């Protein structure tokens, strides 16, 4: 089981290789009996990921069918967690989908917000906004705030190119590539008040 699984895991990841991984799962000799089309993980593609909670770096294995997440479990080949997950890690599936207590159907997690919103000054509720409008409005506010407060030089005449009026907080929940772009955007705007979860 291990060998076969490791063999196909090497192949996953590259987008073009997922179909090969799919074929390998079909040929798994670890299946002692013929697969049954009712089985939960039949005809799924597997992807590896890393847990979003503590910094253990436990591996997870995600099974996807027709573009939808079918199952999430610990990655048995991962040297740190060796297939195990803690209560939070084991419940990561629910970040996206939950079982509707009424209908027993798997539905999108209703606690998650998946569209942009804006709250206007003095308002007591959110309004919907398009991505395009949100981006335009935010960029305008960033520019206006920066332009009004930008310090090219300080009191000693030193070039400082900064704005004290914008702050940025967070980064430890993002992937490293995202951290770099957040940092790069903020610093190039002149932001000095930048911090993340490492500060607490």
């Amino acid at each position, binding site marked *: 089981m291990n060998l076969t699984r*490791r063999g196909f895991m090497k192949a996953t990841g590259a987008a073009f290789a997922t179909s090969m991984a799919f074929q390998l799962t079909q040929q798994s000799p670890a299946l002692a009996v013929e697969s049954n089309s009712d089985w939960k993980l039949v005809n799924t593609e597997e992807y590896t990921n890393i847990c979003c909670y*503590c910094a253990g770096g436990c591996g997870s294995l995600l099974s996807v069918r027709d573009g939808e997440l079918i199952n999430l479990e610990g990655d048995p080949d991962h040297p740190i967690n060796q297939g195990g997950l803690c209560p*939070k890690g084991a419940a990561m599936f629910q970040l996206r989908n939950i079982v509707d207590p009424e209908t027993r159907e798997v539905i999108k997690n209703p606690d998650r917000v998946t569209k942009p919103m804006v709250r206007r000054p003095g308002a007591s509720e959110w309004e919907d906004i398009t991505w395009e409008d949100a981006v335009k409005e935010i960029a305008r506010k960033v520019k206006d705030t920066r332009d009004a407060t930008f310090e090219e030089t300080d009191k000693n005449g030193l070039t400082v190119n900064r704005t004290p009026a914008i702050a940025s907080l967070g980064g430890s*929940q993002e992937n490293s*590539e995202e951290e770099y772009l957040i940092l790069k955007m903020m610093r190039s705007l002149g932001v000095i008040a930048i911090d993340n979860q490492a500060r607490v």
Partner: protein
Amino acid sequence: MTSHWCDFQNTDVILHCGSNSVENHPVSSLWLGKAHDRGAKWIVVDPRYTRTAEQADIYCPIRSGTDIAFYGGMYHWIIENLIDPNLEKYLATGEMGDYNYEYLLNYTNASYLLDPEFDFDPETGLYSGWDEKTKTYSNHSWHYQTEKEENWDTSASGDYAWVKKDGVPEFTTPTLTLPKRDMTLQDPMCVYQQVKKHYERYTLDAVCDICGMDKETLELVYSTYGSTAKPGRAGMVLYALGQTQHSYGAQNTRAMCVMQLLLGNIGIPGGGVNALRGEPNVQGATDMGMMVNEHPAYLKWANTTDRSSLRKWLESQTYSAGYYTNKPKFIVSSLKEWFGDAATVENDYGYDWWPKVPSEKGDQDYTHISTFELMKQGVIKGYFNWGMNPCHSAPNAGNVRRSMANLDWLVVADQVETESAAFWKAPDMNPAEIQTTVYFLPCALIYEKPGTILNSGRWLQWRYQAVEPWDQAKPDLEMCDLLWTEICRLYKEEGGANPAPILNTKWDYYVNGKIDFRPVSWALNGYRTANSDFKAGKVDLLKGYSELGADGSTSCAMWIYSGFYNNNDAPLDPAQQPIGRRDNNDKSGLGLNSNWAFSWPSNRRILYNRNSCDTKGKPWNPDKKLMEWDGSKWDLVDQGDFVSAKNGQQVPPNNNTFFMLWEQNARLESYGMEDGPMPEHYEPFESPFDNALNGSQNNPMIKFTEYESTAHGGTDEYPIIATTYSVTEHWQTGGQSRSCPALVEAMPSQFCEMSEEFAAEKGIKPGDKVRVWNKRGSVVVDAYVTKRLKPFTIHGKTQHQVGLTHHFGWTHLYGTGDTVNDLTPNVGDPNTMVPEYKAFLVNIEKA
């Protein structure tokens, strides 16, 4: 961590202090259990009998905030019982017995002579160099005496010939001041004698009185952990926020380093100072330097004093010896990646386009806690929250809400409606009065996007995207790109305040016209500038950071990661990069797993690993070999953290075992700390007790007490010590875990844990609602009456301590509750500005 998760199995004694890893880092149990099954002893020092304590052999309660007294007492015990009795014999015969003298003498600064002016006065609680006016130290007298000076050889055949290459910015090279040493450790000014003198006050009785410990248990802890001083034995300390979230949290961390150095436990299998980090990629965010004064990869950001120009940066930051002599290569390569073709030697590679942080004494601070004061003052007008929720997680969270109400605009990128996104409709806020425009940008989940994540053991691992984001959610990477593109468009079309830093920023991380994680990985890994053109999809990746230059020929955003993504045959396929490796066949037998993913730096699994061998290059423990000198060459099991070869020749063993420091020896005493060269006990900002060890009640440099919002309550009104902690079913502010019904079902509410004695005194029964309050806030939570907390006896007086979980807030569908961080004080540590969440005062009544 200096070590990594799978290395826990190699230890002989486990010490948990300020961590409850069985509960909060559950995977640690697997590896700690392996050590325990093998016969390792397990010690837990914690205010509460935790789930980790339940697994341990020795549990020693400690009053929150008194860790330095505990560690200081251990140094005193080690010196009195292990070092001093046989020092003369060792010097005469070389016999070590139960103590590793060779490590202490050769790998630490124990023998270095300190400046004759170096001093500490227990009457005042202050070290030499204190300036009462500015409430800061000059560290001049914390330095070493100089034996002789050496200058860099920058001639064509010299070690530093690269300094004279075309394209390398001009700077005056540093002078190495070789310290005076006394290898007999007798000179009264040597670090060892000063450490010995300093901790003479930390007797067993004094420690027990301050920490509320039992003397017999304490001695058992010291002797059990002290047993790891024997060459070949390993002791490992595991800590988390229980150590760092104090107004002397950085000194707590230093204290663990000193303990591990005195015991020879750094750089060996099963050893180390191991921070169990509290966010999935906080290791990455720390590496990235996403903090006011930091720069990616542990360099320092531009400021207005010692880093006010590229030349000044080079002259203040470049070390005179050791690996950090290479810093010019790192900073120039970082600038080249940041500004691309616009960065040239003539314009200092664009250094002045970077914003400079005010850094003169007395200048405004811009870290986390201060930002809320600056919002109140109207200085900070716009705020981005990237997956962070300060209205819940920041100390004195009520103050945070009120401060944020003064913002013009707020942008929150998250997957759920956080307390910060919805601060304007908090139960105690009136939306009609709040003029802030708030944007909520829905983000992709971790398995709805790819990318790099780092665990606590510094492993870089690749996440593969499994499914598309729901609806309109997007990865933060894409959000950044949308915003940046629009901001650039506005500046191009309209001009505005100095557009140069913006318009000269290199931003070309696209594949087929779409923003993509992989070119950003190239930037982090580093590439040869001349052969790379991201716009054309072309990159010449560096093998590793040894290829970096200071002449603009290389670009690299993150020198420590270099090598994690270096396969030029498949630059778009992470599975074929070192980060994508999945070979779990561990040849080391020590769990190094060197062929699984990539560990920074240079795939090194255990930092400072040269210290696992003696001065002749032989492993202290031959059964757990990380490397060995065979007489003519090094046999490296782990990647060596030292100079093992130079110019193609093997370098025989020497004593430069900590080559990330200019001394190349580790510091028992350090001039690098803001608030003192050796850890000294002070009381928390809010404490019912006077400092029994010196004349300064609090850390003399404690931060932010001048802000009125910190609202010290006084011990008469607020006599109960409180701390905060987590449960395994929830995570931090609950943004993710409270959105999962299964987790809310498993742990549906937060609680205040208290001893049976305290509950009886207050007439509180299990399950009652209790009100917990101080001058900063008031919360109502469930009472959880347990045997896990016991009253302490401190200086002869009974003292109660309670603990609160802190995962709930007013938003979310499935689990709501009061915000416990309304109670915690917004004071901080002077080195890190980290808040003091872990020891404060409250009062409690039945609600």
